[in-house]
């Protein structure tokens, strides 16, 4: 074993050169890169945390809006139901009134028609009776007498 100072010094210089090269070409750029990456990660994490907090706020406000909307909807539904009931009631009432009016109108019309028909039938009957009576008894009755007779008979029939 021979320990030689020049060789030790040479190796010290050699190592120094290697260390310098590794420091300036490898370690520092890599460290810088890793620091940048770490700061980006920290920024990303804080941004993610902020986004999560924002999302939580949004969720809360969304729930609040939903609750309010549900309340409003319930009120609207209730009002609409009331209104619908009212409209229905009015419509039924109106229909009832209209049908009553129509019924009464039809009744009146029917009474008129019935009266008209009765009159027509009476006249026809009078003429028929007069014709028959004239043929049977050979005497022509006057219209007043015929009408009185026929009217009495019809009244009996109608009863």
């Amino acid at each position: 074993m021979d320990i030689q100072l020049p060789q030790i010094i040479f190796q010290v210089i050699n190592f120094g050169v290697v260390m310098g090269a590794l420091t300036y070409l490898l370690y520092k750029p890599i460290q810088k890169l890793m620091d940048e990456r770490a700061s980006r990660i920290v920024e990303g994490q804080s941004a993610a945390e902020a986004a999560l907090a924002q999302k939580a706020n949004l969720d809360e406000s969304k729930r609040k809006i939903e609750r309010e909307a549900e309340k409003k909807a319930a009120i609207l539904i209730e009002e609409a139901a009331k209104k619908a009931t009212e409209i229905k009631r009015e419509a039924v009432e109106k229909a009832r009134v209209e049908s009553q009016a129509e019924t009464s109108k039809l009744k009146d019309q029917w009474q008129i028609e019935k009266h008209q028909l009765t009159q027509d039938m009476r006249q026809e009957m009078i003429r028929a009776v007069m014709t028959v009576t004239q043929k049977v008894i050979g005497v022509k009755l006057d219209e007043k007498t015929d009408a009185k007779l026929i009217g009495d008979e019809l009244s009996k029939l109608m009863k």
Partner: protein
Amino acid sequence: MSANLHISISAEPVFHLGNLAITNSILTSLIVSTLIISFAVAVNWSLTIAKSTKKIGTLQNLAEFLVEGLYNLIQSVTNDHTKTRRFMPLIVAYFVFILCNNWFGLLPGVGTIGFKEVAEGEEQVVLLQQDLSLPVAQVQASETKPLEVAEPNQVSNTTTEIAETNVDSEAKSKSPVFVPYFRAGTADLNTTIALAMITQFAAQFWGLSYLKFDYIKKFINFSSPIMFFVGILELVGEFSKVMSYAFRLFGNIFAGEVLLTVISALVPLVVPMAFYGLEIFVGAIQAFVFSLLSIIFYQVATLGHHYE
């Protein structure tokens, strides 16, 4: 295959650059350093490309894995990001430099490709392949066996033996010795001493920069005779750390090389593979241990007495 299985405990000069002998371990360290710098340049280039393409390459992944792993390791010891960032450049360099040097020594051709040189009587450990009597020390050619007291009738025989021993020793010392071109950088004590010295200088530097005058008090303390003696022990401890640190790394890596050489000589096929696996593991562990111990030294140096 050469007749002698040659293992030298010290690095052998391959050529000279002025007065400086460039040993095979220095040559390997230079190659490893070039590869590490090339890797750093490639990573830097890959980072530049990644900025524009937004795609992370394999090199960048590897570099990030390395830096992040070591950063977390230092942080787990120091628990202080400022200190971690201060220690990082040295620790990254220790780990990469030692790991690459350890593993480079396992590559085929390292320790096996070289040239033959006539040894000039240096102290060497030579393992003979034929008889495998390990280890056999080849002493200096001038040294002779101590004379033993012999019977008068045996003197002539003993003299003959001594003469033969001298002749054999001279012949062996002048016989060509295999010198590999490459040897793991960390299998040379000079490299490990250099690394240990850097570690300890850095520990003293950081100790002084963090604790100022309190750090010197650790070594020079006149408050009581006991503390003065403790200070001297601390001072001796700092020097012994360099030695223990250097010998630990050197011993582990050199022992691994010897183990691989011997196993390869005994059973050339298949069996060495298991030991190569073991040495890959040992190389990584040693780099890790050296880095971890450095971190602990720095942390201890930067803490006051009240933490000890």
